């Protein structure tokens, strides 16, 4: 063990931020060995973030202050060497997905560090290609970062930090703003980095996702290292011990069970406990129109005074839009919302409800807390002043009455926002992710605050990913992810759904991969010409870094995570024969490269996704054949062939179609909304109710007819060559 190099050596380091009273770190010494994953944990303000900044040189070079001691990172003295000398050795990932990237475009962001280091253009392109391979972000290249989800943004951040092949990665609370799926992705990325030999230092509150990945845990308190634990020791500690250290739970199972219980407890609006609910929805549909619009139905819900309801579900399932609809900021797409038993217009809802946003800075308008509470009210009225004093007292803000709201801590700002809601007499208070990034103590404080508000007769709705908060303080939970979003009217198909005509599909189809691998000299020449054209365009150049055919073979691979055999051919015919299902519309026989028949199934159309592959209407085929239960070909997403095979005979291009397949539909399709606050431009995956995980990454089949010239024509058309 001691044979390994030490990537980071901290020798009796103490640091106090400029203008601060207390020391942030006091006499800290820590050695981090190569290829180990170290987790820094502790309550808020314990110094773990400051420590992570010391490792990558931000302290004391960007965050000035008094620094004593020595920090050697990857062999360099981090406190004296200019920070850019550390850049190729240390990759940094920070907490907030929104403000981590300097460029607007994914590819530019990946290139940024390399450009700053003065690397030549083709080296940069090669690195981008390799990093996009490693992190699976190929489909995201060239897109605007603003329009990605939080999880995707963090993935880009990890990729961008890895472009220069650093030896050490420093992550500062990377999962604060992510949902469960994105956190699982993050864990996979870290496991892979560990396998590649990187040393990883993570400062985190939420520890559960690192179980099994971390090698050592370092507990900080008040700027000192209290104890270091080996992973096995740490995971063996009792939950009580963990809680006493101010840390979040390591084992979330009991919380998840409690949440499942609370979800079942959802009261049906009809079974009223006497009082009319403050807010009730009936057949509510939320969403917005437009190119990237979406719409989904939500189950009828009711919010009563004195109740705390939790709203959970992964990012993108509609929580933000629902909350905006309930406060009247967005019009409902259908159905009604009743306020105190009467039908309410959006304006009434805005008057009755209040939302404490995740970023409270948008809601603080004044110079002092007192003024903030009295905005919009008569400041000279003694009754108002008395009420403001009472509210401040209740929320423990009296000490800060004359302080500028921006000088307060996040928790205090939250309370100021809630105070202003109370002053306005709002009865419905919604909190959007109030505990993201908070340690155990502060989370419990927020929980206490929720109980206090409920006791005052307010109806509370908390939108959260935090299992501990939801399990501990909510009276019931609504999980939008688990609610059905399609109802009968949706299922019958939409106006733009194409008709299915078996005649377009009949015949043999050949995988596009054959064109890529073809030995025919004419085809090879066409590929060469295409490669030249791509290399000439700087924006597309990274695609051809390993050769244009390598790129296309990745893009059009007929293999999938479930199936390693390349699909060579399809034979499409009419369904029928013994035991054929009545609803089957097509029979497809799948052939491998060497012409062995893999499977043959009759498919029926389950439904049509309006904006699927490449944004086009996509058929969702499925087979009910019992032999297909474990088959990767059970579910099939296909776009209708274009142009039709009949058109080809009249001298058009070879007919071709695109497809994806999986054993389970959920592997390919996500139900939900794009990032609700941002209206994406040019994202193919904006859709009504359903979106694909990868709308631009799919395999292609071309009609197995025509000559070599026809194949070249396709290749040329693809690259806009004449």
């Amino acid at each position, binding site marked *: 063990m001691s044979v390994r190099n030490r990537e980071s050596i901290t020798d009796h380091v103490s640091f106090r931020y400029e203008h601060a009273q207390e020391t942030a770190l006091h006499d800290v010494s820590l050695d981090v060995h190569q290829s180990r994953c170290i987790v820094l944990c502790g309550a808020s303000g314990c110094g773990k973030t400051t420590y992570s900044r010391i490792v990558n040189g931000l302290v004391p070079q960007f965050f000035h202050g008094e620094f004593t001691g020595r920090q050697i990172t990857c062999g360099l003295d981090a406190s004296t060497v200019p920070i850019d000398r550390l850049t190729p050795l240390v990759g940094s990932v920070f907490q907030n997905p929104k*403000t981590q990237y300097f*460029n607007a475009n994914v590819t530019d962001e990946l290139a940024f560090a390399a450009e700053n280091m003065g690397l030549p253009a083709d080296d940069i392109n090669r690195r981008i290609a390799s990093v996009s391979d490693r992190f699976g972000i190929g489909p995201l290249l060239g897109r605007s970062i603003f329009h990605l989800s939080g999880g995707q943004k963090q993935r880009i951040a990890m990729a961008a930090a890895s472009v220069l092949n650093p030896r050490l990665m420093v992550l500062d609370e990377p999962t604060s703003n992510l949902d469960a799926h994105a956190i699982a992705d993050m864990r996979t990325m870290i496991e892979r980095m560990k396998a590649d030999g990187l040393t990883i230092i993570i400062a985190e509150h939420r520890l559960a996702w690192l179980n099994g990945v971390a090698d050592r845990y370092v507990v900080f308190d008040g700027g000192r290292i209290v104890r270091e634990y080996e992973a096995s020791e740490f995971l063996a500690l009792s939950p009580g011990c963990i809680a006493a250290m101010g840390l979040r739970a390591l084992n979330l199972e009991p919380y998840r069970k409690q949440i499942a219980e609370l979800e079942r407890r959802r009261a049906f609006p009809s079974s009223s406990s006497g009082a009319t609910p403050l807010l009730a929805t009936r057949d509510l549909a939320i969403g917005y129109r437009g190119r990237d619009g979406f719409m989904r139905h939500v189950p009828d819900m009711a919010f009563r005074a004195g109740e705390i309801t939790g709203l959970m579900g992964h990012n993108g399932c509609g929580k933000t839009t629902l909350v905006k609809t309930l406060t009247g*900021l967005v019009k409902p797409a259908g159905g009604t919302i009743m306020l105190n038993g009467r039908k309410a217009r959006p304006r009434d809802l805005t008057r009755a409800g209040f939302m404490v*946003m995740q970023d409270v800075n948008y809601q603080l308008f004044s110079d002092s807390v007192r003024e903030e509470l009295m905005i919009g009210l008569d400041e000279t009225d003694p009754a108002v002043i008395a009420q403001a004093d009472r509210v401040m007292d209740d929320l423990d803000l009296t000490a800060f009455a004359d302080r500028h709201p921006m000088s307060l801590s996040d928790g205090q700002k939250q309370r100021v926002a809630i105070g202003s809601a109370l002053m*306005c007499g709002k009865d419905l208070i919604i909190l959007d992710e109030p505990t993201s990034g908070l340690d155990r103590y502060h989370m419990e404080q927020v929980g206490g605050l929720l109980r206090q508000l409920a006791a005052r007769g307010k109806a509370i709705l908390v939108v959260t990913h935090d299992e501990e908060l939801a399990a501990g303080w909510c009276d019931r939970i609504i999980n939008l992810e688990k609610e059905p979003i399609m109802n009968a009217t949706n299922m019958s198909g939409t106006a733009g759904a194409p008709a299915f005509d078996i005649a377009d599909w009949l015949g043999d189809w050949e995988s596009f991969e054959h064109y890529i691998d073809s030995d025919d000299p004419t085809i090879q020449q066409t590929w060469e010409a295409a490669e030249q054209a791509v290399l000439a365009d700087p924006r597309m150049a990274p695609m051809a870094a390993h050769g244009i055919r390598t790129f296309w073979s990745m893009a059009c691979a007929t293999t999938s995570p479930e199936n390693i055999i390349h699909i060579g051919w399809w034979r499409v015919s009419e369904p029928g024969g013994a035991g054929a299902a009545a609803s089957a519309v097509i029979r497809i026989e799948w052939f491998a490269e060497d012409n062995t028949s893999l499977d043959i199934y009759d498919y029926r159309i389950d439904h049509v996704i309006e904006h699927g592959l490449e944004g086009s209407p996509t058929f969702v085929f499925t087979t009910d054949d019992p032999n297909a239960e474990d088959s990767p070909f059970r579910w099939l997403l296909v776009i209708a062939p274009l142009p039709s095979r009949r058109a080809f005979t009249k001298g058009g291009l070879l007919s071709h179609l695109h497809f994806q397949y999986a054993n389970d539909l959920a592997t390919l399709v996500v139900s939900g909304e794009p990032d609700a606050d941002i209206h994406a431009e040019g994202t193919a995956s904006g859709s009504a109710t359903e979106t694909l995980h990868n709308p631009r990454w799919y395999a292609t089949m071309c009609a197995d007819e025509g000559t070599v010239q026809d194949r070249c024509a396709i290749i040329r058309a693809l690259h806009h060559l004449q």
Partner: protein
Amino acid sequence: MRANLNDSSVNASRPSATPATGAFAYAVRPTLDPRTKLFLLLAANLMLFFHVALTTQIVMVVLFLIPLAAAGRWKTTLNFAITYAAFTALGLLDPDALGLPWLHVVSALAVGLAMMLPCFITGAYAFTTTSASEFICSMRRMHAPEAVVIPCVVVIRFFPTIAEDYRQIRNAMALRGIAAGGWGLLRHPAQSLEYILIPLLMNATTVAQDLSVAALTKGLGREGAHTSRTRIRMGVLDWLAMVVVSVPIILDMAGVLR
């Protein structure tokens, strides 16, 4: 694959020629070299400085709107065009003849705003159609000092987030009952401005710190040559644009257009 369809009668609902994957799927929009864009910005400022005649102004505004339209920003171009036309028209009104003395104030305001508009147009063009790395590369080629390059790039980075922030702030204001409703902003303009600007600026400082940290850890502050993945070249169109834009100003200064 989205192949170039000669036969448009086939399945017209399909999107038109764009190749399969994400990287190719955004259309490459033609824009000028970043240095030319800065020159346009300079020209707009010179216009203001030399207080050019109305005809020159109109000609220049039209010239400035062309590249913006060519970059595909139709909506922005149209907005600017209409705004400019409205302000100019207001400026041309003769309050005395109409018998509305208060119109003097409005008219003067309109004239002032109309004169500032070319700067906004060229600024919008420069900062919203250039990527940060193109900008950095061209500024460094011009040997601009780092103290000029970095702030410019941060501005570029900020622009897209401001619209988003503005919307959030308006939502927050609606919930508080401040300046609510469509005309709320106009009824209490000074107050509204304060309520919008303060959170915007406060948020900006936090964002600025995060951005600086992100950029520094990626080596932005490094001394020595930085390269660029994109090739920046001054083409014929760039030189032509610079010449065309200079002509009206020179003619105006020489007194020909007055």
